[in-house]
């Protein structure tokens, strides 16, 4: 509990500075409707969420609440039906309209981690990280060094030359995390990244996100079901039926 308290204080301190900053991401009045008529599903219903730089937010909610839809909308791979997405102060999506080249933007500013590691099977662990750097115009040699640094940092430097097939689920997921962090993104989005991991590994990954957020001042949003690791988050946001619950409606991290 002491650890949580100090984490909370630390978090508050960060929040103070974050307030003066431009938020890492703002989703304003975002609505997403799938299908029409009989099959219409309102997956997001007027959702507004701001995440500051350096802030680590957990997104909780039952299955079908719309968490993945919100995350992919913010990740610029699933355009909202209406509402705005502003990243680093720049209006990126206005309804379904992209205001900039999304792929370039993703490459430069966003990092993703998914439930599955989604590594490229014909590339080694090192190359899976390296490729993210190289497509962002990092020279091969520098890309290699940074990829190696990240893998070392994540404790899998010794597996750098292995293909994904030869890695355990946890190791694969850590490679995916390294890939997400490779280009120093200003926003990291993770959708149930620890679902395939045991609780110890899961917690390690969560702590890593927190560490990166604090060290490199990136906003982090993590969708998770794992209530055991919640104390690493600065803030917890809950969703239900396509809406965010008011802060009073959810219980704080400290009580878990």
């Amino acid at each position, binding site marked *: 509990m002491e650890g949580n308290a100090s984490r909370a204080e630390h978090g508050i301190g960060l929040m103070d500075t974050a307030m003066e900053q431009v938020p890492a991401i703002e989703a304003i009045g975002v609505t997403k409707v799938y299908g029409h008529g009989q099959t219409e599903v309102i997956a997001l219903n007027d959702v507004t969420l701001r995440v500051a730089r350096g802030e680590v937010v957990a997104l909780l909610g039952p299955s079908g609440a719309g968490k993945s839809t919100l995350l*992919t909308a913010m990740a610029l*791979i699933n355009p909202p039906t209406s509402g705005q997405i502003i990243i680093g102060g720049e209006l990126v999506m206005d309804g379904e309209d992209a205001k900039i080249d999304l*792929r370039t933007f*993703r*490459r430069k500013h966003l990092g993703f981690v998914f439930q599955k590691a989604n590594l*490229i099977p014909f*590339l080694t662990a090192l*190359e899976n990280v390296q*490729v993210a750097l190289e497509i962002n115009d990092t020279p091969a040699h520098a*890309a290699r060094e940074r990829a190696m640094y990240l893998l070392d940092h994540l404790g899998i430097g010794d597996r750098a030359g292995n293909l994904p097939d030869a890695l355990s689920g946890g190791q694969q997921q850590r490679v995916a995390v390294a890939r997400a962090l490779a280009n120093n993104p200003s926003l990291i989005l993770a959708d149930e990244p620890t679902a395939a991991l045991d609780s110890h590994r899961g917690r390690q990954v969560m702590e890593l996100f927190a560490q990166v957020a604090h060290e490199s001042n990136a906003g982090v949003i993590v969708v998770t079901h794992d209530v055991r690791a919640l104390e690493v988050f600065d803030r917890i946001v809950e969703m239900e039926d396509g809406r965010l619950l008011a802060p009073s409606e959810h219980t704080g991290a400290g009580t878990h």
Partner: protein
Amino acid sequence: MNLAVRDIRHNFSRFAFTTVGIGLLLMVVMGMAGIYRGLIFEATLLVDRIGADLWVVQGNTRGPFAELSRIPVNLEDRVRALPEVIRARRFVNHSIQREHHGKPLRLMVQGLAWPDDKGEWVSLVAGRPLGQAHFEMVADRSLGLALGEQVTFGKDVYRVVGLTTGMSGIAGDGLAFFTVSDAMAIQFDTPSEAIRLERAARLARTGNQDFGRAQPLLLERAGGASSGISELPQPQVSAILVSLNPSADVNKIISTLSTWSDVTVYTAQQQRDLLLSGTVDKSRRQLGLFSVLLIIISTIIIALIMYTLTLDKIHDIALLKLIGARNRVIVSLILQQALIMGAFGYGLAWWLGQYLFPYFPRRVMLETPDLIKLAMITVLISMLASLLGIWKAMRVEPNTVLA
């Protein structure tokens, strides 16, 4: 980092099998071009090597290769009498098929106007040129005859005294060189019984007529060899080869010969063109059509394999898009694989060809311009074949990664 090569390494066996298949197809295409060159080479070998400036053939014919040409041997002397003509030779050339050691032996009989033409233009790999007027032959190696071997044609036995290599006629049969008179003897060989009957018939016809009965000498001649009867037509040859003084005005001699109503004259180049437009042209089109078909098939195979290879990694391509890879990265991944497949297929085709083509029954000649052309075609079809995969890759949405 090269994604194409890494994916190939990962999918090596499938890639290798397809490449081998493409390689074999390209080898056949390469072989087609080579066979065509070989056809031209074989068809024109004689005309090119025999070194005649003019070909005098039967009037109004395109002989002796495109059609039958028959002219009397004494034309040789008439031509020789022209100014500036330094040499006139009879041309006798025909294909025969005989049994030899129980196996069919097909050869093209080429007469040499011995002793005038001893066959200096035929390069020997073993033995010696013809040394006597009869019963010797110089054979091409492809006929499988050994030096000193005896072969029976008609009523005579010929001995192989020299061997050549790479000398074959229009139909691809190996050439065998004889003196002109031997070549004619082989050509006009008639069974003894037929000759005996012919002589008996002549004797009977002459004996039934007054002048036959009145002149015993005539009767005696009628029952003998046909060459002894001046009234019978002289033996004929296919053409007369004319060599001119290097300083001679060719056109003037041609116009002189053109006034002879019983012959037609061609330059060596015209003879060459006649050969190619007649015999070779249809084969060329045939081979060309096959090549085009095979190239289309190769394109389809590469396209299908590129498509399935792309489908196999469509998830990875979506991921690349998701993490922001430019289209260039994805296009070059597919394009490079197609090009690598084409390049290795081509290399394999060439390499295999070096070993296999010499065993083909007809000459296969790989010429650099043809090889370059096929290389460019391979690059082109590889690019074309990658379009389907590229199209598929361009359409995939990055969020399919999440599905």
